[in-house]
């Protein structure tokens, strides 16, 4: 059974169809990348999977670990093991990073019938992950993402991922806006999460990240559908040739 199975997914926003029949299967232990031109629906796909209610699913099915993802609320999906690293992480004044993450982890632990962690047990765990992502300990008590630079916000997403240990991690354009140093740190954090029980889906516009996190599969999303799939070398081909050459495939695919 695949960890994530997407079948003929159609989604719209404001009656405008963006996903026009996406098919994808991701197995545990695999790293997939979805690339595509701007407006192809990459972020929409990520947001639909994360259960953002502003998108309407008009057709299709998504199974997470065999369970129907499309009937789940965002918090249920998270408890079932889904995690999305946001493209634009929001700032939440008044709630500290430590408090927020402990609340999140405990919500997930409770769902799984595990004991909740108190602050004393939680802090060393959080500090360890912060060290991995080279985040200053001072960020612990700072409000979530408040005053963080773009790079710090993205690293904070990966810290959260490392703490929550999801089964299916989706990274939505985590690399955009990062300089090479920040990119390397983020990649290190994500690579450390690779495991036979986990699958990672990298949604990315640029090939650059994939030099550091080499995917097992690369898919090209154009005009709301996956028009081509291949191995890591496909990313290099896209880098060289752009997305245009995949268009004939797109035309035939979107009958």
């Amino acid at each position, binding site marked *: 059974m695949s960890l994530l199975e997407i079948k003929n997914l159609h989604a719209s926003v404001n009656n405008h169809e963006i996903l026009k029949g996406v098919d994808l299967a991701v197995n545990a232990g695999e790293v997939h990348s979805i690339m595509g031109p701007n407006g192809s629906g990459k972020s929409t796909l990520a947001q639909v999977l994360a259960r953002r209610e502003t998108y309407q699913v008009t057709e299709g099915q998504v199974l997470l670990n065999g369970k129907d993802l499309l009937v789940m609320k965002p918090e249920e999906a998270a408890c079932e093991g889904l995690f999305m690293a946001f493209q634009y992480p929001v700032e939440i004044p008044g709630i500290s990073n430590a408090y*927020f993450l402990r609340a999140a982890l405990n919500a997930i632990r409770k*769902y799984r019938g595990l004991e909740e962690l108190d602050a004393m047990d939680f802090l060393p765990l959080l500090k360890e992950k912060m060290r991995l992502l080279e985040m200053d300990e001072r960020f612990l008590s700072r409000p979530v993402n408040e005053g963080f630079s773009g790079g710090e916000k993205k690293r904070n997403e990966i810290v959260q991922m490392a703490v929550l240990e999801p089964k299916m991690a989706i990274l939505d354009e985590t690399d955009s806006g990062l300089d090479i140093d920040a990119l390397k740190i983020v990649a290190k954090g994500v690579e450390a999460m690779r495991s036979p029980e986990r699958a990672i889906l990298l949604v990315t516009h640029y090939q650059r990240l994939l030099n550091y996190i080499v995917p097992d599969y690369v898919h090209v999303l154009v005009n709301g559908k996956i028009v081509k799939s291949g191995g890591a070398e496909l990313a290099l081909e896209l880098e060289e040739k752009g997305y245009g050459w995949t268009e004939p495939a797109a035309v035939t695919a979107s009958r």
Partner: protein
Amino acid sequence: MTLVKTDQLQNYLDAFNTFGVRTERQPAWFRVMRERAFARFCEVGFPTAKDEDWRFTNVTSIAQTPFVLARHAHASGAAYADSLKPFRIPGAACQLVFLNGRFAPVLSDFAGLPKGSQVGSLAQALAENHKTVEAHLGRYVNIERDAFCALNTAFTEDGAYVYLPRRTVLEAPICLQFISLPGDDPEMTHPRNLIVAEDESEANVVEDYISLGSGICFSNAVTELVAGESAIISHYMIEREDSQAFNISTLRTQQGRSANVSSHSVLLGGGLVRNNVHPVLAGEGGECLINGLFIGNGNQHMDNYMLVEHASPHCSSRQFYNGILDGHSHGVFQGRIIVHKDAQKTDAKQTNRNLLLSDDAQIDTKPQLEIYADDVKCTHGATIGQVEENALFYLRSRGIDEGSARRLLLLAFASECLERMKCGQVREYLQNIVQGWLPESSRSAGTKAASAGGVERQWEEVG
């Protein structure tokens, strides 16, 4: 202004006439003051909507209710000791309890007071005719302008008298609890407090309004706070009475040179609540912070009125008010700033932020700047919005259920106010009780909000 209805005016006349019995120990000068105030009240009556300062708050229900003077509670009050335990603030320097406006020594304690400070009943201080009392009591509130202050002065029976000699530093809070004991008839109390903090003194004073039992009662309190040169005083007002309570309160502060006074108000309970904060920055280099939180639900009406007067140069003032409104509640923010002609280099800032959690909740927010000096900096801004959808989704995407996520965000919003409270004992105590007053509402406010983009509209003027 409409006069008090004839039958109610008779009610107040009767009350005033019988009041003499309760005030026999008051010195002559104060009795004269009370009589003048009563005459003024009879002249003007309660304010109406035509009165600019009362545009958003209708006090007809107060004007039409035949309030009688609150009866004196049981002689010792010891019967209430257990009921009052949950309302104690841990770590207080002292605790004064007033039952229906009258000091209850049996329920009060003074263990943590430093030598030289005087904290006790105003009735007692008046009876002993302290010089300090005569020098300050009634010298600051404007009974001509303010009918509720006139009414309070007319019916002043008791309250707290706090005197801090020069250089007294007291970190632990002085707690004043005003307990309403509703009876069969609608009753009124007019607590009057006088706080005199001499030069370089530092203290924290809490006024806490509590109901034991449910019923119609009207508390009309006035506090005059005089801060000497370089004094640092924080005043806290907590309103958590029953939903049938009417609560009008006025804090009038007079600040000397370089004095720093903070007023923190937390409005949680009460049915019709109006809190007036009126600092006058009389000495150069003074600072004042007016920090407020109001959480409204059901049919509550909470009006926050402040009037900051910059009367001297180089003073700075900050007003930060956060409102959370649910149900059919109605919040009001009226922030007036007057910068007098000689108050050059004034630095004033005012911010009011509001979250509306239901379609029927309402907020009126009105800044008012009157600037007569020419070298000043004054900014003001207000926002009205719903719980931030992006923040809500972010929390839920990490596994936190919707109800808990909303509570977290509301608590964070309320905490913005609490974080500005420097007195740890008070802040921590409030952090606990505010959680219990946050609305349970787990649904967002209607489709109107969603189509408007869901988030905050913001406008700011720089004048």
